[in-house]
């Protein structure tokens, strides 16, 4: 067949609607992938750049050792932005006043991302600045001013250096939400550090190299540098686990949604290609009698497919771009106006998806055409060789696998999807078969429309099992996405409830507690806890001194970050702390008189601590022993303070402690902090309201993205339903036309069609609900790390919605079937 002929036939098929569904299915596949990846690409870039302000950079390299020059050289060679900082605790002195502060020394490039906010007087909002403290100058946290009794212009001693107070530091980007980054901040120039002489062997210093630049370059740098085990590579995921995990889950969800959308569209492509091919069997028969060879047929129809594929890709890409622009426009209030433009990847992904869908889902049906016997022309009852069914399945499975793997770039997600699909097909197939079989028994006693419907269902049992499978899969995938979306959004929202405490107060002396609490109650709503805090260290385990014990049990000491003997914050509590979970042992009775201890799971594992171990503590020179009676798991993502070690009240309560509490303060009442700190200059306030606000806005955005994907996939799902109903249309049409010539009324046909779709839809719904519960359970536990939950409501809703949707779509799709004169149908089929 020459190209002119091929093009003519393709265009005619397009115009006559024969190709319509195939084209739409391909367009949806390409459009879904393109718009999702365009949007995800840009959203990711936007979120990353926003999240980067948490690090003051795109990446950090952090270590307790000086960062080797080699690292900077390598980074500079790649045109990355660099900044060096140092963090260390130090005492500062002004006259006889002194205070422990947390010093951050920075160079002129700091910060690479985000802004420094400074002011000329303490406890005001401040403005952004482009500079850092000049050599000889320090910027102090507001609360240091009352604590040290200084004003701007005074000089203070940091180590051996005498420096001038230049400005009030309101906030810096990488302040972090750590509860134990104790002491208010002092920002100074890194050039002054040598003069302070605080850097001595053994002093606790954190060196950081801040990096800014393009993602691939950063990742490449990471692979080149020898970081392990002394240098830690920090991205937003490690720096802020709350946001990191929200991003991770959202990414997984978007990926999964995109995948399911493509797979659904793929099913629609396969179904409509199958129908197209079936309707062209006679066509091919005629061509063959006219002398078309099998290879001409193959070449011709593959060219038609290629042509349609190209048209679909072009439309799909355009649609994808438009759709993603629409989304960006809709979400513009949440996304910075200047979104970085997406790269080529989404387009390439879209084109490839179109080609792969056409190749693996549509081509088998097209290849099959060459096997059509020319005898069909004179003998209509002649079927076609069934062998290529296997080819079709193999091609579809292979194509899906390739798409899954390439698109998700995650072997695990692909394997789970594959296993799920296999299980689903086997279980669903048998379930649908059994359901259909039981349908006949019920049908025996039913009225005539029902009888007609059920006999139809019985006669085409194989096709109907397939159809229930396809319907069921489509409904199931949609249910899965809806359930997961709800689970994710609920989980995210619960992390930052409205009115969650957004300020923490530490270092409250015992005799100040009542006064501080009163003050808080007047202006803010109080948090739900008040913890005593005592600094102490574990000095022995079962009588073995800590250092010796640690050397014995820890196999690889060089990789062990923390030391058993390090000083830690201890607390005592009779009540079990919320957001903790006991994994071994039991929590002590509230009236327990014994000295008991409870430790965090990772801590216990790091130091091989077991229930029943006797822990000895040194608290300000006092010795205390406690028996380990429980091991807890902490929810690190919750916005509440977490303690590695908690003791029972008898073990600690007689020792002097400071206290920690929390409160919720509205943005407009921030000045209250001034009152609080002026009245109680020694307490420490940690503000996490900005952090909470940021987390919340990211959650809102990600939720919207997730909902959008859900909408797109819904569209693919509907397409599958339509394609599937279309695919069985011819068989139904012939049957019902026959019934009508035999005297069946339109009412009977309509009723029987509705009954048929009702049964198919209900069965598909049942199958879908079973599948959805299983899949969601697996996904929640394996991929999203959420708790498994059953959803009783979908057991009622699933079959109902399935039945309703399929009856409506089905009846709309076969309108012509009921209304057109039977002669026309029979003649058309001839």
């Amino acid at each position, binding site marked *: 067949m020459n190209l002119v002929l091929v093009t003519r036939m393709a265009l005619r098929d397009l115009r006559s609607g024969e190709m319509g569904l195939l084209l739409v299915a391909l367009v949806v596949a390409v459009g879904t992938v393109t718009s999702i990846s365009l949007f995800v690409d840009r959203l990711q870039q936007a979120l990353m750049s926003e999240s980067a302000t948490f690090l003051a950079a795109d990446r950090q390299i952090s270590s307790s050792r000086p960062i080797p020059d080699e690292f900077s050289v390598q980074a500079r060679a790649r045109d990355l932005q660099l900044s060096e900082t140092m963090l260390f605790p130090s005492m500062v002195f002004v006259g006889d006043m002194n205070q422990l502060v947390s010093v951050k020394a920075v160079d002129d490039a700091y910060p690479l991302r985000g802004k420094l906010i400074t002011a000329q007087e303490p406890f005001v909002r401040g403005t952004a600045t482009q500079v850092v403290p000049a050599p000889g100058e320090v910027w102090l946290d507001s609360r240091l001013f009352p604590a040290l009794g200084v004003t701007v212009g005074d000089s203070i001693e940091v180590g051996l250096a005498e420096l001038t107070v230049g400005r009030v530091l309101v906030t810096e980007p990488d302040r972090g939400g750590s509860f134990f980054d104790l002491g208010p901040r002092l920002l100074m120039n890194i050039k002054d550090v040598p003069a302070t002489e605080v850097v001595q062997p053994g002093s606790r210093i954190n060196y950081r190299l801040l990096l800014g630049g393009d993602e691939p370059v950063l990742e490449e740098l990471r692979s080149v540098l020898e970081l392990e085990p002394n240098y830690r590579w920090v991205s937003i995921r490690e720096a802020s686990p709350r946001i990191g995990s929200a991003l991770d889950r959202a990414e997984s969800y978007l990926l999964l949604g995109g995948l399911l959308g493509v797979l659904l569209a793929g099913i629609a492509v396969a179904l409509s290609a199958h129908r197209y091919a079936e309707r062209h069997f006679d066509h091919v028969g*005629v061509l063959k009698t*006219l002398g078309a*060879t*099998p290879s001409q047929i193959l070449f011709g129809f593959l060219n038609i497919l290629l042509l349609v594929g190209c048209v679909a890709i072009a439309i799909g890409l355009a649609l994808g771009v438009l759709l993603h622009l629409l989304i960006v426009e809709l979400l513009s209030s949440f996304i910075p106006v200047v979104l970085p433009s997406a790269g080529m990847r989404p387009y390439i992904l879209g084109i490839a998806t179109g080609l792969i869908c056409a190749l693996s889902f549509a081509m088998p049906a097209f290849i099959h055409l060459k096997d059509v016997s020319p005898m069909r022309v*004179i003998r209509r009852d002649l079927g076609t060789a069934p062998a290529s069914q296997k080819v079709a399945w193999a091609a579809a499975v292979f194509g899906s696998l390739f798409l899954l793997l390439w698109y998700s770039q995650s072997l695990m997600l692909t394997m789970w999807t594959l296993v799920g699909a296999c299980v689903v097909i086997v279980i669903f197939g048998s379930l649908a078969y059994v359901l259909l079989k039981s349908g006949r028994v019920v049908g025996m006693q039913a009225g005539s429309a029902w009888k007609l419907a059920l006999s139809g269902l019985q006669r085409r049992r194989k096709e109907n099992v397939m159809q229930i499978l396809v319907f069921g899969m489509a409904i199931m995938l949609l249910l899965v996405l809806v359930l997961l979306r709800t689970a994710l959004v609920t989980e995210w929202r619960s992390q930052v409830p409205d009115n969650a405490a957004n300020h923490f107060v530490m270092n409250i002396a015992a005799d100040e507690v009542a006064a501080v609490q009163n003050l808080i109650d007047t202006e803010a709503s109080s948090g739900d806890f008040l913890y005593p805090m005592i600094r102490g260290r574990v000095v022995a385990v079962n009588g073995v001194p800590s250092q010796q014990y640690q050397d014995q049990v820890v196999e690889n000491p060089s990789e062990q970050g923390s030391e058993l003997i390090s000083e830690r914050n201890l607390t005592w509590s009779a009540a079990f702390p919320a957001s903790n979970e006991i994994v071994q042992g039991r929590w002590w009775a509230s009236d327990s008189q014994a000295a008991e201890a409870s430790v965090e799971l990772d801590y216990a594992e790091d130091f091989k601590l077991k229930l029943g171990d006797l822990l000895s503590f040194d608290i300000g020179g006092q010795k205390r022993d406690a028996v380990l009676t429980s091991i807890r798991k902490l929810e690190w993502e919750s916005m509440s303070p977490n303690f590695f070690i908690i003791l029972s009240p008898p073990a600690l309560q007689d020792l002097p402690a400071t206290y920690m509490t929390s409160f919720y303060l509205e943005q407009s009442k921030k000045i209250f902090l001034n009152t609080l700190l002026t009245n109680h200059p020694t307490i420490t306030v940690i503000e996490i309201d900005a952090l909470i606000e940021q987390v919340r806005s990211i959650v809102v955005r990600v939720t919207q993205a997730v909902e959008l994907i859900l909408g797109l996939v819904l569209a693919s799902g509907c397409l599958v339903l339509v394609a599937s109903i279309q695919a069985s249309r011819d068989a139904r049409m012939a049957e019902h036309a026959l019934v009508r010539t035999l005297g069946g009324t339109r009412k009977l046909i309509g009723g029987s069609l509705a009954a048929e779709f009702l049964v198919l839809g209900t069965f598909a719904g049942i199958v879908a609900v079973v599948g959805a519960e299983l899949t969601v359970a697996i996904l929640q536990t394996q991929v999203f790390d959420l708790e498994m939950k059953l959803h009783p409501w979908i057991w009622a809703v699933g079959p109902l919605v399935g039945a309703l949707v399929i009856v409506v779509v089905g009846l709309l799709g076969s309108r012509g079937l009921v209304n057109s004169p039977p002669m026309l149908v029979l003649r058309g089929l001839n």
Partner: protein
Amino acid sequence: MRAKAGESVAVVGTSGSGKTTLLGILAGLDTATGGQVQLVDAQLHELDEEARALVRGKHVGFVFQSFQLLGSLTALENVMLPAELRGDRLAQEQALELLEKVGLADRTDHYPRQLSGGEQQRVAIARAFASQPTVLFADEPTGNLDTHTGEIIIELLFSLNEEFGTTLVMVTHDERLAQRCGRTLQIVAGVISNDSASQISQQGAGS
């Protein structure tokens, strides 16, 4: 059986007697489980589908009971198909000429569904002769038409057959149609029970 060039053969028999199967095998649409078929100079039983298709394209034309026009192509395009499949450049001129011969010069741009049954069959006949076949196979060409239209079609078929000097093999139920052919094969249960040609030659030999 053997058919000479230019001969017209009618194959008659009851439903299920094997007429259509015979037609399929003779035309190279189907393969037989045994025996040999020679079409012009091609040994059809030795060829695969690819090669048989080439033989069909070169030597064979078809007219079917149900017309078998491609619904997505116009009358002209349907008639052009055989030549286009062969890669013939003059397809259009030749097709227009044929359509004129079957009296459809003014309906070239119509799609099959816009034509009556008789008109559709005339397009099919034009298409059958477009490949300038050596043998024309016809399967109940008037089966879907009323008597009057049927007669017109028969006239057309035989006159073109004469003009092109084509061998005609026709499966039919129609006694009158069979009588117009030079030779009649009667098939009963898959076996040729009566061949008018052999009777004549036997009679000739006997007389």
